[in-house]
């Protein structure tokens, strides 16, 4: 994962729009992919990607260079994504259920791919850890920093997510 020169971050934090634009261009595709898997909705992910970078801009002066910039951006995206999930729940006014509502593998949703349906059937905590590791290639440590959980928790969540997905694939769905 690309890590920007600290001077570029400082310039963006000081109000250099061109510098900030460079940061947006560097990370927007990664953020969108993360959010698309987290939210299961490409269009909503686009809106929340925008919201993520607005938040990044507002919070830039609080970035202390104690972590990688990429993990910090993903943590902002993750919080924006969770807010969007809550907001969507309110908007759709779903009745809370005891387990995450899963979409049928064969239901032919908008994305149309079983892999996305299977991902959406995971508990969101498993899903976000798995996507960071598997789709974006973060290390356990980086994912832990992004999610605000210990490395061991990431390891456990990725294992359980992978176990469910491999079991599902082995059942002949893919």
């Amino acid at each position, binding site marked *: 994962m690309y890590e920007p020169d600290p001077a570029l971050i400082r310039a963006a934090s000081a109000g250099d729009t061109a510098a900030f634009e460079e940061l947006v261009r560097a990370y927007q595709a990664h953020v969108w992919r993360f959010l698309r898997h987290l939210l299961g909705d490409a269009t909503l992910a686009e809106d929340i990607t925008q919201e993520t970078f607005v938040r990044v801009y507002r919070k830039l002066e609080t970035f202390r260079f104690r972590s990688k910039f990429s993990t910090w951006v993903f943590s902002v995206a993750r919080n924006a994504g969770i807010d969007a999930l809550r907001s969507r729940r309110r908007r759709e006014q779903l009745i809370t259920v*005891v387990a995450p509502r899963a979409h*049928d593998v064969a239901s032919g949703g908008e994305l*149309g791919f079983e892999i996305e349906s299977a991902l959406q059937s995971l508990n969101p905590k498993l899903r976000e850890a798995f*996507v960071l590791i598997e789709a974006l290639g973060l*290390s*356990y440590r980086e994912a832990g920093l992004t999610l605000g959980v210990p490395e061991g928790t990431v390891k456990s969540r990725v294992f359980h997510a*992978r176990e469910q997905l491999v079991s599902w694939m*082995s059942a002949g769905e893919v």
Partner: protein
Amino acid sequence: MAPDRLLETLSRYFDGELPPDEHAEIEQLVTSSDEARHYLDQAGLLRSLLRDETAETAPDVTTRVLAAIDRGPERRPARRLRVAAAFVAGVFGGVVFIGLALRQPTPVAVAEIPEQVLAAQSQVTSLTANLQLVERGWHPDIDERTFTGSISYRAPESLWIEIEDDTEYPADSWVPNHSTYVVDENNAWSSAVAGCPTEALPSCTPALPRVSVVHNREPFPDAAQAPLDLVVPVAGFSRAEEPEILGYETIGERPGVGVEVTAAQVAALLDGLTRIGNWREIHPTDRVELWLDRDALVPLAFTVYPADTEDRGLWAVRHGYQDSPETAILEVTWSDLSLGEPDVGFPTPPRGVADADLGFVESTPPDLEALTPGDLPVGMTMHRSGTVTTGSGTSSHVVSWSDGRSWLKLRWTRDWDLSRLFGDLGALVREAPAGPGVVYLNERGDRIGVHGEDLDVVLTGSLPTGALLDVAASLDVIGHQVPETWAESATATVDDARSMVDGFKLPTGLEGFEDPAIHVEPGVAIVAFAGPGNRGFLLTQDADGELAPPLEAKVRGVTVQGNEGRYTPERGLLEWVEGDLTVSLTSTTLSLEELIVIGESLREP
């Protein structure tokens, strides 16, 4: 090595996260274990599937982001103060009827309206009308936005909505909220501006509309249903109790009957107009005055007023809205309404836009004759049938029937291997007898799952629950109870719940909700009640007898059945302790006042 430990170690090995000594040990094991190699093969396939999707183009949001930050993020404190001042005033008793004068309530058979709406859906075969919309409170700098448009419908599922923004904005930087939405059976497309956070308007709105095109769309898809409640509001009146009557009135030269409902109840109607484009949000407890054609039960007009509650006021502040319960936030009127007009042509999507293939191919499914219900409602004829094939070749068969706007769809597969019901019924279901077997209904009673001997079926439609059950019972499939390993095996009856949770209670005198779906675990009972539209609540009774620390900062003290409890507005959660039982009511669509009434009505059955 124990199997779980092995898989966990393999998972870390696959991610390159094993220390060198363990790494070598696992490499040795992989060479000798078919199970380990299979696991790694499957994990590798999964990774390649996820990483291959990088071919999908990520959108470029740079322009929107830069425009948003250029605008500045801070809300003005004055806005909060103005809302607070209105709140303190607290004199919202009067009701202002805007645009619909001379409403004089007349005694009518109001109780029949829900039934009449459901019956009327089969009578509407086509519809055209012009639309006039007024929206208030979208942005502090824009008092009011006005729109004109049109709606064209062709039974059973084709719909074209065109909305033109006539607002005179203060500057060119405000992008008009024009939108086009077309569903034409197999194809669908839409064009509208992208939404933006209120505080980032107007500069964050892209000048170009967002265009979406799909083809090979199955009939009545779960994910992208056409908003048919704009034609006859079936979802809004399924399971509905007797509505509050506003009266009779002529609207646009048509005889109308007015009822008062909540935004949650008619969410499908409201969302139908505002699902694309850049609109303000409406709170689920907002009050909606809905006027329906007395004969055809199609909408003629509706007006939305903010609910007059503390929680609604706080919600408005969070969204940056300066709402007052006296001022309508959305008014919509249908005019020049015409039913049964000759077929209208629908516009084709713009050229050059990438489209998405939803995988439906029209055909005659192999088991169609055997799976055609023996008890189809009179008037229903076959609509579209075929096979939905998704990315890797997995397929299920679909057949649909319709009569006007009413519809019925059967989907089945012989390859269902997951340990839950086929058909996306959700985790809370209820079991019902059907012929010699059993079926499962979702919370709303509009989706029925059948777990057969060698096939799994789901039946959906716009019909009332009883009619759907009749159709399910007439299928040549005997439904079995789900295996004990499936999530739905914890589905319970009231007697089950009483035996597993001491002091188990249910609401009494509850009207306007489907029979409950009950899920039990030792010491815990979870009961879901679904009402019309999106109204619903969850009742949880847990034998742990204590409240967990609150997860949100804003919590309010309340009293329920003489017990001190608390309400968390952000989560719509009312909870209290009665003896050894922790009781909670959760809803994002019912107000605190309604939840307290339900809480006070709880009694042991």
